[in-house]
Structures are given as C-alpha cells and as structure tokens.
C-alpha cells in the first residue's frame, strides 16, 4: 500500500513554460533593460546575464479587498501593558498593526521593484531580437565553438581502438614480474634441493625416496602456479586518453572606426555600438584571441580606449580619411597581416569634407582592403552624401567590403550578411 517514489530525475524545470510567459508579458521592460545594459557595457562583456527591474505595480493581480475605514476589531498576541479601555494612537497614514488579515508581511505595500536575473541566454536572445538576426545566425553565434579532441595521457578504460599496446604490455610485464618473482625464486631453490637430494639418493632408501617424491610434487604445484599467472590481464590495459578542446586557434584584430564629430549624437553612437558588438560576437566564435583597436576621428584620428571611444564628446568637422590612414599605420606597425586576421568596422553619419571622400575610396581599395579579411561600413543616417557614393564604387570590385545604411538596430544585420553566409557555410 505504501510507496516511496524517487522523483528527483523526473520533471525538472516544470516552471520553464511559466517563466517564458512571464518574460513575454514583460517584454517591453526587459527590452528596455537590455538596451540600457548594452549601452553601459563594454563590447567584450556583452555576453552576460542582467538583473531586470520591474515596478511592482505592473505585476499585481488585482482582487477585491477591503480598504481603510469602517469598524474593525483585531486580536493580537503578546499584550504587555494594556488594560481594557486604553487608547492607542492611530499610526499615521497606514494600516494599523498587522492589517487584520493574519499575514500581511508578504503582501506588504512596499514599492520596491521586482528584481530578477535574466540568464545569459535570455539576454542574448533579446539582444538578437533587437537586431533582427536570422535564426541560423543566432544558433551560429549562440553555440559553442566546435571541439577537437586532443590526446591527454592514458586512462584505464576506453574503447578498443584507443588501446595503447606498448603501454599495456609494459604493464603486463611488470605485473608478471611482481607476481611471479618470489615463487620463481622459491622454485629455483626447490629444484636445486631436489637435484641435490636425487644426487645423494641411496638405492633402497625408502624415506629419502618419499621425500623426493613429496618435493617433486611441490615443485610441480609451484610451477603450475607460476604458469597460471596470466600473460595479459584486464588491469594491464591502457588506453589513450582524449580530451576535447575548443577549435578556434588563430588570432584576430578588429578595428572599430567611428566618426565622433558634432553631428554624431548619442543615439547614433549607440547604434554604432551595436554594429561593433555584432562583429565582435561573430569574431569570438571564430578566433581564440581577439584584439580590439578603437579609432575615433573628427578632422584628426586618434587611437583611444573603449570608454573614450563611446563616451567622450568631440566637435568639429570631419575628415574620414584620417582614420583610414591611422588604421593602416597601426596595421603596419603592430599587426602583420600574415599572422593576424584583420577586420574593419566603420560607422559614420556619412558627413565628410567633400574633397576627402575620394581619398577615402582610394585609400581603402589600395591600402586597406588588400590587408583585411572583411571591412564593413555602416552609415547611421539616411541621407546619401559623397562618402556614400564613393564607397558604392567599391562594393562591386571588392568582395570583402560591405556597406549598409541603418537608422535602427534591426537594420544593422544585413551589412554582415555576406560575412555570416561565407563563414557559416550552409547559411540561408
């Protein structure tokens, strides 16, 4: 009749469906929070979870209840000093002691936010949603890099194809010696004694004959015991051990070029940041080590750290070619194209000093594009100016150049379409 059932292995994560429904319901707040988080984070630590705050009032499920007022009588335990008829001052603006519902603590009126942690996967999901990434690319970005198995020592078990014969035989030999040596020595002694006794045997000496017979029998048994030591025992077997290590092996450098002239406002910079993040995420799947180089420019270009890249304010005109020149210098001095996979990402509002755009095109096509694996340009403004026109000439001639206009996050992805297609093999 009575039963004990072990349910520990059954039905974990039953609440997943409910959690998803909860997240879906609060999509807007979560998207906002993710957006804020992306803007506040460095490119390198995008892939983390995030705490999401949701105002409590958005989560309440209303029911009919009593409000303040009317007549109530509430019983409390732990009377210290009161007698009947005592007056107690009414607490200011709140329900008096205990609220009469028996248990008020967990439904208290506190206005704290409801805070919960979005997991890394969920966070990236929202981020990708925002960028309108196609599914195939999502899985490509979300999945771990491929694995390659590496040899790592030996182990006691494994599959026959990993059997290491020499090691196994060496083990067997050691075992045979260890097990067989002592009895063998004893055997030699006994054989010697037997030979001695046989030599000294007088014919007709029945006692000595019996002793010899007994010793011979012992020798026989001992020999049999030694022979029973197996040549190869399962405990001798040694197998090659293999561990899995992630595949990405080579190194890459990613150049982020951004226009920080007066016309680039915060919104445009944030858009540019998403563009850089996407390229960075792509690269992390393919390369073990990635260096980031940030080049910002107005009329002059300079290399800066990430913080200054995104947040420092500059004003003034725009000479785009200055950044390209600096990029080429940095490549020459620090990143030998034969060792490094070089990627370039440029973001600008398309505003450029008009004599300069032609130089940009020439510089790109002659100096930079031959050195880099891929160069992507995003214009974060609508109107097409001379820089756009000049760059348009490049697209036909260079397969490793891509450009796109993006005024919202979902338009960024197409600029990388070729990149993902090429590297993603079966991409849609």
């Amino acid at each position, binding site marked *: *009749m*009575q*039963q*004990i*059932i*072990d*349910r*520990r292995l059954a*039905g*974990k*994560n*039953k*609440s997943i*469906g*409910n*959690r998803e*429904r*909860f997240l*879906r*319901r609060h999509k807007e707040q979560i998207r906002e929070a993710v957006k804020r988080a992306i803007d506040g984070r460095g490119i390198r630590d995008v892939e983390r979870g995030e705490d999401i705050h949701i105002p409590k009032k958005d989560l309440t*499920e*209303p*029911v*009919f*209840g*009593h*409000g*303040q*007022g*009317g*007549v*109530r*009588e*509430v*019983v*409390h*335990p*732990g*009377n*210290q000093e*009161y*007698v*009947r008829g*005592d*007056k*107690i*001052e*009414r607490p200011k603006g709140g329900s*008096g*002691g*205990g*609220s*009469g*519902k*028996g248990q*008020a603590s967990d439904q208290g009126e506190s206005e704290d936010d*409801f*805070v*919960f*942690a979005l997991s890394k996967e969920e966070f990236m999901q929202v981020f990708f949603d925002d960028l309108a990434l196609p599914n195939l690319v999502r899985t490509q970005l979300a999945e771990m890099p491929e694995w390659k198995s590496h040899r790592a020592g030996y182990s006691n078990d494994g599959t026959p194809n990993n059997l290491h014969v020499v090691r196994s035989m060496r083990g067997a030999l050691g075992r045979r010696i260890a097990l067989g040596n002592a009895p063998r020595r004893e055997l030699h002694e006994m054989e010697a004694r037997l030979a001695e006794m046989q030599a000294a045997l007088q014919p007709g000496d029945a006692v000595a004959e019996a002793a010899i017979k007994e010793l011979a029998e012992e020798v026989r048994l001992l020999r049999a015991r030694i022979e029973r030591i197996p040549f190869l025992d399962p405990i001798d077997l040694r197998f090659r051990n293999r561990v899995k290590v992630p595949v990405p092996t080579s190194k890459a450098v990613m150049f982020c070029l951004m226009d920080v002239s007066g016309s680039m406002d915060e919104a445009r910079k944030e858009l540019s940041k998403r563009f850089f993040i996407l390229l960075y995420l792509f690269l992390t799947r393919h390369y073990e080590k990635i260096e980031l180089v940030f080049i910002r420019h107005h009329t002059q270009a300079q290399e800066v750290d990430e913080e200054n890249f995104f947040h420092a304010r500059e004003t003034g005109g725009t000479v785009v070619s200055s950044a390209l020149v600096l990029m080429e210098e940095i490549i020459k001095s620090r990143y030998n194209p034969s060792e490094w996979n070089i990627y370039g990402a440029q973001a600008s509002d398309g505003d450029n000093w008009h004599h300069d755009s032609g130089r940009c095109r020439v510089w790109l096509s002659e100096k930079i594009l031959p050195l880099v694996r891929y160069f992507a340009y995003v214009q974060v403004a609508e109107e097409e100016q001379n820089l756009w026109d000049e760059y348009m000439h490049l697209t036909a001639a260079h397969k490793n150049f891509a450009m796109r206009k993006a005024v919202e996050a979902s338009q960024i992805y197409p600029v990388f379409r070729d990149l993902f297609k090429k590297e993603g093999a079966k991409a849609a």
Partner: protein
Amino acid sequence: MKTKPLALEHPLPLAVRPAEHLPATSDWSFELIETYHRTIRATAERFGLDTYPNQLEIITAEQMMDAYSSSGMPVNYRHWSYGKEFISTEKNYKRGHMGLAYEIVINSNPCISYLMEENTLAMQALVIAHAAYGHNSFFKGNYLFRMWTDAASIIDYLVYAKNYVAACEDKHGLETVEAFLDSCHALSNHGVDRYRRPSRKSLAQELSERIDREEHAQRQVNDLWRTLPRALHKEGAAPEAKRFPDEPQENLLYFIEKNAPLLEPWQREIVRIVRKVAQYFYPQRQTQVMNEGWATFWHHKLLNTMYDDGFLTDGVMIEWLTSHTNVVYQPPVGHRGYSGFNPYALGFAMYTDIQRICEAPTEEDRAWFPDIAGKPWLPVLDHAMRNFKDESFIGQYLSPKLMRDFRLFAISDDEKQADYEVSAIHDDAGYKRVREALSRQYDLGSREPNIQVWNVNLRGDRSLTLRHFQHNDRPLHDSGQEVMKHVARLWGFGVHLESSNAKGDVTKRFSVPAPS
C-alpha cells in the same frame, strides 16, 4: 480491510518494545525512510489516525520550487503568474532569504507528500509524521474537505485543465488566453459556492459532459438574451419591477459562465476550470489554523511516543525538536518578526490545550467546557478535527488559559474615533469578547468583501451590476476599479459595482464601460 472510522477511546498499547533504536544516521536512504515510515505508521495506527494511502515522493529543491510556484500542485495549467512566483521563490532561496518548506502535501487519494532530498533523516521522519499522517488524516476527516473537494479526481482534473488550456493557447493564441485567465483569476475568490455542495464527477464524466454542456449553456444564454424589447413604451418601468437574477448570487464566476452573453464555449470552459480549482482550495483557506495545528500536534505526539517507546535516539529527538520549536514560535505584537498569528503556533497550542482539558481539567475548564472536561481525549480531538473550520473551532475551543498564555488582546479600530481602543484583554471581563473577535478574524466572510450579482439590465445596455454589502462599514479597496475592468472583459458589456452600507444605501460606485 480495517473497519473505520470509529475513533479510539484510548491509544492502543505498544506491541513489542524494540531491542534497539532505529538507525540515526544523518543521511537518509530509501531503506531508512521505509523503516521510519513503518514505525510511524504503526504508531499512528495505535492512535487510530485514519488516512488515505500514502505516497512519499523524494524531490530536489528545484522541484520543490516548481511545486511551490504552481500553488503546491504537481501539475497545473501554464500562466505567467506562476512564473512570477517561481522567479521570486528561486531568488529568495538562492540568496538564502528563506528556506523552503520542508514538505508539501497534496490533498489527493493516494495522498502525495513531497520529501526534499536535502533533508536529514530526522527531518524526513518529521515530515512523514507531519504530512503523511497529520495533514493526510485531516484531509480525509474534516467535513469541509469531505464536502467540497474530491481527493480522488483532483490530479486528473488538473491534467485535463492543463491540456485544455494548452489546446486553447494553440487555437486562440497565447495572449488571448492569458488575458482571459487574468480576468478569471481576479474573480477566483468569488468563484466558489459557499453553501451548495458541488457534485462529484470523475474526469471521464467531466469530459463527456463538456460537449453537452457547451451546447446547453449556449442555448440558455440565447434564451436569456432573445427577449427583444417587446413593448418599448414599458421599458422605463420593467427593469425596476423584476430583477435578473431574482436573488442575488454570490458565485460571480458561475454566474458569468452561465449567463455572459458573448463568451465563446472555450471561454466558458476556462471560467469553469478556474472556478473548480478555486473551489478545491476553498477549504484550505478556511482551515489554516486547524490543519497546520493538527499536523503539528500529531508529529509532536507521534515522534514523542516513538521516543518513549525506545525507537528514537536523543540525537534525532533534538534535531526535530529544534525545527519544531521554530515552527511553533509566535512572536508578540511589536516584535520585528510579527506578522499576525502563526497558524502552526495557535493550532498546536489549541489541540494540546484540548488534550489538557480532557486529562487534567481545572475548575475554570470545567465551567467553560463541561462537555469535554475529563473525557477521553482521543475522541474529543477527533470530533474537534472533523466538524469545525477555523472560525468555529476557535469560537468553540479557545480556552481562557490559552488566552492568558498568548496574552491576547483585542483592539477596536473605528474610523470615527481618533484613536484605537483596547476593547478587551485576557481577563474575566474580556475572555468572551477576545474569543469572538479572534473567531471573526478567521471568518472568510468578513475577511473578504461580500460581493454579489445584483442585476442585469436585460432590456437596455445589457450591463451587469454587482453589489458589495459592507461589513461594519468597511469600504472596498481602490483596486476594485482594476478588478471591474476584468469583470467587464468577462461580461462583454458595461459593468457597475455598488457598495452599500448596512442601511442599504449605496455609498460608492465603480463603473467600467463596455470593452470595445
């Protein structure tokens, strides 16, 4: 089989005293749980505890959180609010703000008790005694549970509900179903029959009747709404003369399920599901003190008896007693941890006190409880468990001694007075009043606003009017306006709520126009 349930007059004697203690390792194993369970069951039988068959399930902390967040049930339909519950439970647990309950027990047949794998052996013994014998016998014995819930079919019904809601989501879209469930949940406290006994149906019946029900319901609704205004000139007078429904109805969800004009069949079925689940939990909300007190009393009694009989070691005793002491702690008012009465503490104290009154009554007890003073305690306790709910249990059995022990006092809060007034304390003049006040405090009728279906405007704009009957002039909370939006969504036309005081005057109105 046993012939039950005739309460024993006295506990039966121990058959054989054990040669040695039960093993007292800290880690449990299935064999050990089995051994302890056997002993606990034998002990419970000596006290004549009548239970459903037991099914003990070992689960992980994570599964415990799952169960927690779907109102303790092993299956339930999906809804975001359970997700919210899960997230906050998980967060608190991970930060160490709360331990999980040691046990969850389900009023089903067989009665399922969850044992968490993290518990030590002593704690598992405590949980088995508490849940599998305490709560279980309460579920089987108490009249509210016998009358309102059907332990045999609840799990099947929830499985059905889960599948039905999932099918609706597929067909009508997640958001539509979710919004509709939100609205039903807002009224779930008003979706129970308080005075009429629900019929018991097996799942198979429930399913086979569903189709008929859908057709029948729709026909009835059509009948109701077919009455076109025959004579327009009478319109002004007619609604005054005759209300629909004839009598006010307290079960709002039932009324909506049967009469809302625009609901589709699947929506009516969902209203019904929410209503059924609310009905299932209705007895639990009315017997917190009795139920928890009963389970606590019995784990205390059973484990102590086992100790006296030589089954338990001192170590095991000390371990479960530590946890028992925490559970029955009642912080006094003004204490940092005070948040009203602890049902475990009050209930445990009351059952223990009843036993005391039976076994060693004082003069005072004889005067207050002539019926039970000096009687055998087992039948008295059994009677008290079976035939009461919190409200009447306290009204009947709270003794002056207990009021003194707890130092109870009543505070009267009258809006019209500047200050609170201490209306009664634990003295001769106050016992009765304190007891009555505490009993009322556990009356669901006064805890939750009394709201009924008052009228439907059949001839005109089809609006639904609800009426709130104020209790002691207590007004409705402002969230009522939000709830009315949900009512409007269910009803499909304009809805009004009139809040009326003792004299029958309407003091406040909430109105929501027809949803577009």
